[in-house]
């Protein structure tokens, strides 16, 4: 019997179609059809400029957006050949690991919900809310943050970041412990997850599978350890691996990775080089930057002479004091701090050179591939520039594409009911799979 599962089906994972040939409840053959969320990321990125691609990258793997942002920025920075300050690396690492936490929470929560453990889903989403509030404190948005810029980040961590972060992690650890108590030795959960969706390490490598899916089968390939980028080589953390390659192992790998992510964030927050530096002592009476611009437009120079521009709360963390620690020195790549844009002519020129039509961030012609460890595996961005202000080609190597191509092999031989935990542990994110 041919059974068509999808594309609109109850699993909250995305839209995919599986055409299964059944013999009773056993799946004999399965074929997957994807592409239902193809939104043309690669084509759109050729129509906007380099920083304009950032919102599109957010929506690739939308449960861990900052990892995508960071991967794209690092690929373009490699292409240009610039480096960012060390504190910026630390900030990116902290935010990436928080994103990884939200991804694993969502994945495990959704898997548990589909197996019937609805409470675990509610607990995981509760923990995710705390993390999203933390992300909102730093970036201004909960989900689609567009936090990184080519050459830096949007703004530094707020001064009072440590306390809420510790609170959020305390709640998250409580939730993980509760989930362990509810699931890990739960007879029903274990029976459904253990022994299903098994893939061997050789098969996984042949398909190009990376990330927790591969680590559940044994090999400990993690891009953060094997090809370190940012400051991962200076932070001490472990990479959990499984043994059998079934769904249960992958679930345990993800649970442990969450703990390791929190460990990375705590280490990074401790080791981070100090932030704001008073580059020039601020002299003159403070005038709000928008007021200064308005007065200058009407020609009221006396009112603004001797004043220094002060930016508003939405630009907190990106002012002149923070700029040296969150942005590269390359003036042709990143916008100046707003006090300079409004306050002196050099800053204004630098802003214009990056923003006005016909100018903009123009890397030299070249190509670069930079992989980062996404929540599903190796997320690589391959960028080609032809010297103009728009990317010539941006390719994202999606980690769950490889895993989904292996899905028929995982499903064949099992029963229909085994599809649910297997599909849950695949953690297919439609935005990343179909781009």
């Amino acid at each position, binding site marked *: 019997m041919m059974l068509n599962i999808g594309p609109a089906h109850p699993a909250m994972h995305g839209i995919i179609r599986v055409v299964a040939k059944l013999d009773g409840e056993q799946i004999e053959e399965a074929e997957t059809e994807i592409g239902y969320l*193809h939104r043309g990321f690669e084509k759109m990125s050729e129509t906007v400029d380099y920083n304009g691609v950032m919102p599109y990258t957010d929506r690739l793997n939308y449960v861990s957006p900052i990892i995508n942002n960071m991967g794209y920025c690092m690929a373009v920075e490699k292409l240009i050949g610039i480096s960012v300050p060390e504190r910026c690396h630390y900030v990116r690492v902290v935010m990436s690991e928080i994103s990884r936490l939200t991804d694993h929470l969502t994945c495990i929560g959704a898997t548990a919900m589909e197996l019937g453990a609805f409470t675990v889903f509610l607990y995981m989403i509760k923990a995710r809310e705390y993390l999203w509030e933390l992300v909102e404190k730093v970036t201004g948005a909960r989900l689609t943050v567009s936090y990184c810029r080519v050459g830096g980040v949007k703004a530094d961590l707020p001064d009072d970041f440590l306390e809420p972060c510790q609170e959020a992690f305390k709640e998250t650890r409580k939730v993980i412990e509760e989930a362990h108590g509810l699931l890990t030795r739960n007879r029903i959960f274990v029976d459904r997850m253990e022994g299903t969706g098994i893939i061997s390490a050789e098969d996984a490598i042949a398909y190009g599978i990376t990330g927790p899916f591969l680590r559940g089968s044994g090999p400990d390939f993690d891009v953060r350890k094997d090809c370190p980028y940012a400051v991962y080589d200076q932070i001490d953390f472990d990479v959990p691996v499984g043994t059998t390659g079934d769904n249960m192992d992958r679930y345990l790998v993800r649970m442990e990775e969450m703990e390791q992510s929190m460990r990375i964030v705590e280490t990074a927050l401790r080791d981070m080089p100090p932030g704001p530096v008073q580059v020039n002592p601020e002299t003159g009476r403070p005038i709000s930057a928008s007021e200064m611009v308005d007065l200058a437009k009407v020609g009221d120079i006396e009112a603004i002479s001797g004043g220094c521009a002060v930016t508003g709360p939405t630009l907190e963390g990106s002012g002149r004091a923070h700029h040296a620690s969150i942005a590269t020195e*390359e003036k042709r790549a990143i916008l100046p701090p707003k006090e300079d844009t409004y306050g002196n002519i050099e800053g204004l020129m630098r802003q214009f050179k990056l923003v006005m039509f016909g100018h903009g961030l123009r890397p030299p012609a070249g190509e670069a591939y930079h992989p980062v460890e996404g929540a599903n595996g190796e997320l690589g961005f391959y960028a080609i520039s032809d010297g103009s202000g728009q990317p010539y080609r941006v390719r994202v190597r999606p980690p769950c594409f490889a895993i989904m*191509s292996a899905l028929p092999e995982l499903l064949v031989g099992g029963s229909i009911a085994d599809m649910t935990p297997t599909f849950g542990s695949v953690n297919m994110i439609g935005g990343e799979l179909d781009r």
Partner: protein
Amino acid sequence: MNAAELIQSVTSRYADRVRSSHDYRGDATIVLQHEALVEVAQFLKEDPALQMNFLMDLTAVDYSTFGKAAKPAFFTSSGVTLKPSSEIPDADPWPGPPGSERYAVVYHFYSMSHKHRLRLVVPVDESVDDLDTLTGLWVGANWLEREVWDMFGITFRGHPDLKRILMYDGFEGHPLRKDYPVNKRQPLIGPQN
């Protein structure tokens, strides 16, 4: 192995098939003739010094409008040149597109044991059916090659099932080609705008 040694180990064996090579920004890149693709890929996978067991990525680039981005008319008509150039200079410039052919199919390989990466660039023309499939060596190449066919129209000889993957069956054209306009929609239902 570092980038230079990787390039050396391939070019020393296949000197007549390698068109050029470089390591721009530290990425070892080899531009290869399309006939030698499967042979070189097999060498990369099986040679003990290389052991590239991962086919990380398989994609294509359409180089037909390279460097021909329209200059903004605002400046060209006024005769004002953009000086100083806002383009960021490069001490060690990139050699440029791999050939005169329209497309280049790009393969990224990774070795888990030796932790090194290599990029193979194979220039192809659209009209010829030149490339062999790599599904015999890596099963994951199946879907990746289907995506290249879907987006660019490049066929792979010997592929078990070359059909559309991201677009639907009735779609005509190959969207990522440079001559496909970005918002030319071909809706299945709804208004034809």
